[in-house]
């Protein structure tokens, strides 16, 4: 709810406050016991030898919280998980980042973390899909793959011993993202799920929810497996395929995104902006619900960023969560 810069009139303010109160009352029933603030005592059974994890400390024989958050218990480990934290990378996270430097044998990416992530040349598929040792010529041609300021989707491979974050982009679904827009939201609004790549068929757009808070909304790109393509082509056709690949980047500059796809991209992007300003968790279902709400009200796309729509989205979300609660 920070940074809301809208002029709500009196009725809108009342409605928004009521919706937010309703949401608060729904959530606090489930975990009011677990929420702690700094210097709260964490109730532990003194008989067990418990492990004090992140966010806790021992004070006068009591286990006391040092963060504001929710207490989590796993076997003998007790720790406090902060609700609004900086992005904390884990292995296997899908992230979206921007290249800020082309370094020897690797690219440095900015991913909304305290450090820059590193994508090694060896963790990246070569354009032809062939597996071979990267030579000096590959290193010199790094810029033809990714340049500065390119937006890239990758996966977290792991941490190095010096704390540096390494990424890999070995599959076809990772790589450069073009023809779309990148949005920045708070990282804690993107929860870890099984799927982060979403293809919204009825709109024809790709939606990538990066765990680091960078969300990509763009035109749908068909994921082609180059190994499959190579098997299908016989040797005489290969030179033609290569020339087609080199032409495609020049073509992309000229071909425009179709109008309807562009409208859908902007609508989805605005839905994400509204949700992030209201502080709601961003998932595909919620985004689709907001987009459907805006189309059902036949709002102009830019009116989605107006005060009336904010209040409507908050009310809708309160309704949805209360109905979810009743079903259980």
């Amino acid at each position: 709810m920070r940074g809301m810069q809208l002029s709500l009139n009196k009725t809108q303010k009342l409605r928004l406050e009521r919706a937010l109160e309703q949401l608060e009352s729904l959530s606090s029933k489930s975990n009011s016991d677990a929420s702690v603030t700094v210097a709260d005592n964490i109730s532990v059974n003194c008989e067990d030898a418990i492990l004090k994890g992140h966010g806790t400390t021992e004070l006068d024989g009591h286990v006391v919280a040092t963060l504001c958050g929710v207490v989590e218990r796993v076997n003998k480990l007790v720790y406090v998980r902060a609700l609004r934290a900086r992005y904390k990378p884990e292995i296997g996270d899908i992230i979206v980042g921007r290249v800020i430097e082309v370094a020897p044998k690797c690219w440095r990416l900015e991913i909304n973390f305290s450090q820059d992530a590193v994508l090694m040349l060896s963790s990246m598929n070569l354009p032809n899909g062939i597996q071979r040792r990267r030579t000096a010529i590959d290193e010199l041609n790094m810029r033809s793959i990714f340049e500065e300021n390119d937006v890239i989707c990758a996966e977290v491979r792991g941490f190095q011993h010096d704390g540096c974050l390494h990424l890999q982009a070995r599959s076809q679904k990772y790589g450069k993202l073009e023809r779309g827009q990148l949005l920045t939201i708070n990282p804690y609004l993107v929860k870890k799920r099984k799927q982060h790549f979403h293809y919204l068929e009825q709109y024809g757009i790709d939606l990538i929810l990066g765990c680091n808070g960078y969300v990509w909304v763009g035109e749908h790109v068909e994921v082609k497996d180059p190994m499959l393509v190579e098997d299908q082509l016989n040797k005489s056709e290969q030179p033609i395929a290569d020339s087609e690949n080199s032409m495609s980047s020049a073509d992309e500059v000229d071909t425009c995104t179709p109008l309807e796809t562009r409208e859908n991209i902007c609508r989805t992007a605005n839905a994400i902006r509204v949700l992030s300003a209201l502080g709601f968790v961003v998932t595909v279902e919620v985004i689709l619900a907001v987009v459907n709400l805006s189309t059902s009200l036949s709002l102009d796309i830019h009116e989605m960023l107006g005060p009336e729509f904010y209040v409507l989205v908050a009310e809708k979300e309160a309704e949805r969560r209360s109905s979810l609660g009743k079903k259980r």
Partner: protein
Amino acid sequence: MVGLSLGEKNFIKGGIAQDIRTDGRKRLTYRPIFVETGVIPQASGSARVKMGATDVIASVKGRGGEELSVELSTALQRCLLGGKSGAGAGIDLSSLSIVEGKVCWDIYIDGLVVSSDGNLLDALGAAVKAALSNTAIPKVEVTANASSEEQPEVDVSDEEFLQFDTTGVPVIITLTKVGSHYIVDATPEEESQMSSAVSISVNSQGRICGLTKRGGAGLDPSIILDMISVAKHVSDQLFNKLDSEIAAAEACDDE
């Protein structure tokens, strides 16, 4: 401002060409404008204007002031004070005189940029207009027995105030040229793609009070005339919007 990849730049340019910008606005649509008056109690008048994430504060005082940045201040000066002869000026300077030919009020207008998200000049112009409409100049009593040579004695009233007349104050509209189209209220990403930008100040009678061109690319004179006519057309909507917002803000303030 972070850089933009080639794909994103093409997306922005394509959007402007197709009349759907990245947040869904049309080329000539402004972001929602939020006006708050009376934010600085020590000043004679003040206003805060928010357009999206751009946040500016303008204050009007009877004395004192700090320096504005040179480009913004010259642009504002040109737009508000009109030409050298004083023709077409936004503020009626004669309303500021206390004693003919001797004593008058000096108005100092200061602008402060709290956060910039593109389109600073427009926001500053709107803030200055709102601050001037919020300005209350103390009423001054002139003691009658002063002879024409001496300095007349004046009694500045603390209770009674005169409202400033702001119907003549113009508003600034910045048109950013991207490709072959113009947009108003550009975000920083859109401004990074511009070839040139023309800021035109128009008053409510539809007359041009000032003109500034920024950007490296040269412009054909016919394009400038075209931009002026587009600005006049946009200014009608902006005046209505601003007047209603200022009135609402003043009403809030009074409560």
